[in-house]
């Protein structure tokens, strides 16, 4: 059994020092026209390189680019497409962070065009990079449909699934080995699990050897766990902070594929206790009994909800926990 310490997805884009606020300054100056888009992208990449290195130094085996230049998880990918406008703010789940809602104005086309970011990140990272995409169902749920072209959430989800599929295909061709698809909305609408399953079949159809991890968070996945095991993905990423019964359910049901355990609380500054190591041990045993030889330990969600120094400390603590588990080799 291999235990891999992974970052979940986003990373704080501002710290306390003036140097760590350069991305914020560049963003503001781009808005006023004092910095070109190219200049902003250059700063964003410089900052991303820094947070990639920070994740590695904190002990992550698998890093992300921190999504530091994404406006948010929803409007950033959606705005890349033709047929989409961007509307007002909406709170993202129970966070104090807001996304801008996409407006679907006509038939969707174009590309999310996220693969270039992945390719670039691999050139500056000392560790493997995990690209993260927002799933078609979550994108559809946060969108306002202003066209007759998509009759309902299902139709829009399936259209977006095709486009996510294009991106996974490109990521595979670019050499990515594991991509994460975020579908937190599934936990708010478990009745749509069959739709998500169908959408993921379409999205993963042309992925090739690329492995796909399906991430749910900001809700209790205990009752849905059995259904999640039927999803056409290679890995499940689970938020353990909302579901006190989820670990017992994993032990009961087992898993035929690797899991990414969101056992480190990505939403609170309090550092996680040693009990997390016991949870990892329990899940490792459950996987081991099914012959699964890989387990990821990661924050329960994006680390963007924490100040940067606390995010780093979380990752350091995660590595300490990983080194104290007994059932797996870190």
């Amino acid at each position, binding site marked *: 059994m291999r235990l891999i310490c992974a970052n979940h997805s986003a990373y704080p884009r501002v710290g306390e020092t003036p140097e760590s606020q350069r991305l914020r300054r560049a963003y503001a100056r781009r808005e006023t026209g004092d910095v070109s888009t190219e200049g902003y992208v250059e700063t964003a990449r410089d900052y991303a390189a820094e947070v990639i290195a920070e994740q590695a130094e904190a002990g992550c085996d698998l890093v992300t680019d921190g999504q530091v230049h994404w406006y948010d998880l929803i409007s950033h990918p959606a705005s890349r497409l033709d047929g989409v406008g961007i509307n007002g703010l909406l709170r993202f789940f129970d966070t104090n962070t807001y996304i801008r809602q996409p407006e679907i104005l006509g038939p969707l086309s174009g590309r999310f065009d996220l693969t270039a970011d992945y390719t670039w990140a691999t050139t500056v990272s000392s560790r493997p990079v995990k690209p993260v995409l927002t799933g078609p169902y979550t994108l559809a749920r946060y969108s306002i449909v202003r066209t007759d072209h998509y009759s309902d959430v299902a139709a829009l989800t399936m259209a977006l699934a095709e486009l996510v599929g294009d991106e996974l295909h490109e990521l595979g061709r670019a050499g990515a080995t594991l991509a994460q698809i975020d579908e937190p909305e599934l936990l708010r609408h478990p009745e749509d699990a069959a739709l998500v399953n169908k959408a993921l079949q379409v999205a993963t159809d042309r992925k090739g050897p690329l492995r796909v991890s399906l991430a749910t968070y900001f809700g209790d996945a205990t009752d849905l766990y059995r259904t999640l095991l039927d999803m056409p993905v290679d890995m499940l990423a689970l938020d353990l902070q909302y579901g006190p019964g989820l670990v017992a359910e994993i032990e009961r049901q087992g898993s035929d594929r690797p899991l990414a355990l969101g056992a480190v609380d990505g939403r609170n500054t309090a550092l996680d206790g040693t009990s997390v190591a016991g949870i990892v041990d329990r899940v490792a045993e459950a996987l081991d009994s099914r012959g699964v030889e890989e387990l990821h330990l990661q924050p329960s969600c994006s680390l963007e909800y924490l*100040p940067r120094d606390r995010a780093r400390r979380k990752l350091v603590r995660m590595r300490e926990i990983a080194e104290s588990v007994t059932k797996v080799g870190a």
Partner: protein
Amino acid sequence: MNGRRKLEALGINLPLLPTTAVGSYPKPVELTRARTAHARGEIDHAELRRLEQEATAMWMGFQNEIGVDVPVDGEMYRGDMVAFFAEEMDGFERGGLVRSYGNRFYRKPIITSEIGWKQPMTVDWWRYAQSLTEAPVKGMLTGGYTVMDWSFNEHYPDRREAALAFSRELRKEVEALIEAGCRIIQIDEPALSVRAGELDVAIECMRVTTEGLDAYFLTHACFGAFETVFPGMLEMPVDNFDLEMANSGFDLVETFHRHGFGKDLSFGVVDIHSHVVETAEQVAERVRMALQSMPAENLWVDPDCGLKTRTVEEAQAKMRAIVQGTREVRTELSAVAR
């Protein structure tokens, strides 16, 4: 007792469709610079306070000039609606920066020990603002559920305990405001709808903070999924819900119409995230739309949220549109009544 009668019993007579602001106005550039200079230790507290008072007087003068019925002090002394109270009370540590949206960040406080009220935090500002106008000035606080949700909790065993601890202490500030003469008090709970399963906690918090106290209470909430807590949220023990409407396309009006609202509603008619200034006619149209589902005696008119993210000029233009547009509709209503 309905809201209008309660206000009258408190000695406050407001016109139909009272206009107000949610709480914050933009800080003048010189005050923003002074806050930065103060944080760097370049100017002292007395100098900062002088500029905060000047800015408060400017906003009070503006509201008097255009005729806002229930003015606010504009929160010139606050950085953030949660961090301000966390800085003034025991139990909190200053947190690092986290992102709210786009390029906007705030300092999310950390609860590290028992929360405690030390002394009045907003009362002197309310007194000062009230001394500058004949109109009743609204007191503005942030409620326990939101302070809990927008803080990290390293002390209390769970979210409910943290929220109630703050709410109990906030009650002392409400009592101090009432003691000073404030009769209209808004307790902001923008986190109201973040977890529908915790609505009972938010309601309990408001009860702990306000029950039995003699004032007209409003709560402000915005940018949330109100449909997930409606109609349960009507159990909140307040007289008036101040809700963002313009940004969400006014889609809640129909829901309220079908169900009935039963409280006063402060109806947000201008988008506080847009640089585009609405016209008085647009405001009037939106008020007329609200009147299709809400009796005029229950309706107040204001922006979606605090205007602090706009420029001074934009905020003033939006407030002018609100007051002028509302007056148009008021005139129409009085013509019908005649």
